[in-house]
């Protein structure tokens, strides 16, 4: 059976599974729709959280990102896992004890203010829409790469599926499809990784393989890798190029942001008990860590593989580079998609792949008769081409396609649900029409989920130029706005309405302005660099500073204004104990 047919079959089967689950877990009331009736087993919730969390970017791009960043890629690994410690220790159990449906609802009740609730809804919507647009785009891209359909068709199919189970099943439907999606995506990710590790190092576990020796040479893999990339003018793989303070702040912003992302936080509203919320965060991180500890192994091994495939002999030797006509089959396959491209600058028929942005090495390369780097590599290829590089059968390639789609769909669905819950529960019921019946609220929820799918689809189809650039900043915004407000709401009895609102607004405005200024306000080539950044913190890391500002403002303003009323202080006491 040829690859395209097989891919259609595997992807089709996974869709049938998701739709089947959606029918089985149709939401009966608002409790089901918002928090799956609070009946989700902590292990199932852990899996659903993992699928919810791991997006198309985690699945397709992260290993490649690390492969080309080396040590600097660690910010994503630590940042996107360390946030679960904060979530488990500081937020999840208390929010579960609070026992309502949404994050803005907690903020509204704790700060006894509709304004605070509306501010939280605004933060939530900004965060979730920037994030979801990237997911819908991801669905389209996976479809187009694996099935040869155009991005728009892929997008429409993806929207149709999400529409079906998010609108019908709400949180209940999403939870159980996410469990299935996690299984699909983790299997698709680890199988090729294990085989590639085996081939290169003889060790089956990627986590250990990249700290082992290369199968034929006997030298340590990372030492070999550091050697060959520096020989070609790249920075050493295990050393960083970013400044220490920037690495620190980016990691912190990603951690705090992760803990403050509404679609992740709300998952812990769905378990039966407080202690389930604690342990469930552990299961979530366990399921996430399987992918996140595999990715750096895949990244290092693939980088070595790619570099040595092109640089077959000593650097500078006349026959040290791969002859283009003798390139391997996977190279030819991915060349067609444009993920790999070769331009023979010095017309010698061989591939010179090196760092021509390094002036010192470029001068030496010129002596070899090299006239510039000839290979352009899209980082996504690291994961996408893995099964072919490892020589795995076509069904594994098909599975990787299904895995990429599962990763994108599960995240998109989770985001769409928090958006619709914010609109139907926080805005419609909470502010506009408090007397709305449960039936009508559920209908409003379904309609807003539907509208959100359409809007997300449109953003994915025709992303305004900024969307792709700001997806990563959803974390900064979550870190600077929602996280501090929730944290103070639990750990302080003194922080009041005025403080929380001022804090959220200052954090949000500061972070958004800083990002907008450096991404769009100044010339990207000259203005957006460490010398002009505040304290040398890049826009990616500024959310951490925004969070500190938020905390400082909230404290100071609260100290100058009246204490919260007695019933709010009792609410804080109540959420601090499980019983």
């Amino acid at each position: 059976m040829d690859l395209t047919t097989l891919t259609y079959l595997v992807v089709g089967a996974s869709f049938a599974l998701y739709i089947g689950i959606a029918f089985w877990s149709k939401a009966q009331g608002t409790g089901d729709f918002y928090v799956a009736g609070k009946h989700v087993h902590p292990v199932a919730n852990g899996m659903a959280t993992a699928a919810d969390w791991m997006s198309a970017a985690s699945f397709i791009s992260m290993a490649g990102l690390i492969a080309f960043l080396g040590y600097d890629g660690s910010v994503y690994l630590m940042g996107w896992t360390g946030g679960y410690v904060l979530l488990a220790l500081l937020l999840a159990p208390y929010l579960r004890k609070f026992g309502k449906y949404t994050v803005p609802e907690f903020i509204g009740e704790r700060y006894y203010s509709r304004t605070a609730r509306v501010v939280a809804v605004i933060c939530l919507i900004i965060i979730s829409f920037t994030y979801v647009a990237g997911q819908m785009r991801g669905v389209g891209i996976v479809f187009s790469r694996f099935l040869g359909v155009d991005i728009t068709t892929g997008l429409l199919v993806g929207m149709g599926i999400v529409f079906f189970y998010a609108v019908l099943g709400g949180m209940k439907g999403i939870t159980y499809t996410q469990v299935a999606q996690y299984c699909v995506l983790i299997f698709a990710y680890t199988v090729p990784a294990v085989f590639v590790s085996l081939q290169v190092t003889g060790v089956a576990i990627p986590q250990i393989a990249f700290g082992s020796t290369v199968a034929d040479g006997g030298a340590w893999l990372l030492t070999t890798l550091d050697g060959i990339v520096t020989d070609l003018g790249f920075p050493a793989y295990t050393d960083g190029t970013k400044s220490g303070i920037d690495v620190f702040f980016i990691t912190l912003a990603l951690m705090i942001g992760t803990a403050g992302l509404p679609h992740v936080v709300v998952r812990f509203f769905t378990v039966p008990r407080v202690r389930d919320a604690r342990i469930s965060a552990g299961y979530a991180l366990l399921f996430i860590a399987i992918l996140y500890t595999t990715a750096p192994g895949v990244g290092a091994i693939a980088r070595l593989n790619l570099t040595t495939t092109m640089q077959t002999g000593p650097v500078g030797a006349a026959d040290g580079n791969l002859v283009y006509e003798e390139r391997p089959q996977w190279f030819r396959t991915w060349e067609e998609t444009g993920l790999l491209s070769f331009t023979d600058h010095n017309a010698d028929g061989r591939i010179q792949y090196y760092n021509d942005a390094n002036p010192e090495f470029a001068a030496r390369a010129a002596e070899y008769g090299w006239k510039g780097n000839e290979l352009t590599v899209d980082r996504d290829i690291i994961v996408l081409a893995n099964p072919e590089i490892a020589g795995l059968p076509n069904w594994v390639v098909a599975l990787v396609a299904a895995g990429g789609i599962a990763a994108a769909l599960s995240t998109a669905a989770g985001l769409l649900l928090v958006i619709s819950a914010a609109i139907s529960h926080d805005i419609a019921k909470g502010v506009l029409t408090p007397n709305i019946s449960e039936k009508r609220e559920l209908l409003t929820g379904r309609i807003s989920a539907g509208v959100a799918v359409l809007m997300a689809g449109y953003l994915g189809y025709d992303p305004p130029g900024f969307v792709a650039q700001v997806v990563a900043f959803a974390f900064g915004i979550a870190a600077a706005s929602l996280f501090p407000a929730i944290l103070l709401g639990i750990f302080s009895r003194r922080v009041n309405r005025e403080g929380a609102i001022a804090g959220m607004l200052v954090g949000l405005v500061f972070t958004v302005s800083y990002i907008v200024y450096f991404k769009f306000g100044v010339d990207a080539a000259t203005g957006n660099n460490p010398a002009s950044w505040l304290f040398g913190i890049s826009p990616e890391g500024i959310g951490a500073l925004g969070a500190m500002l938020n905390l400082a403002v909230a404290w100071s303003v609260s100290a100058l204004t009246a204490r919260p009323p007695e019933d709010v202080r009792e609410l804080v006491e109540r959420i601090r104990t499980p019983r």
Partner: protein
Amino acid sequence: MKDGGYWRANLRLVAGCLAVWFLVSFGCGILFVDLLNEIPLGGFRLGFWFAQQGSIYVFLVLIFFYAWRMGRLDQEHGVEELAEEQEED
């Protein structure tokens, strides 16, 4: 305040866990990475290993440890959830 001891014990536990959280990621993986990189761990340099593997394993252990320890704390202070408890809304 009636559960003062419980809350204070919880805060102590959280502070301890977060100290470890900070040490393995920001400490070993970022601030002291060059120092630790002098130490080999198999084919890894230790600082690099903490940044890309070790910190994640410690995070995992931390959450499960916290969940377990809090479960015991709940019981010691008699604030654990009852077996049959079903929350109404």
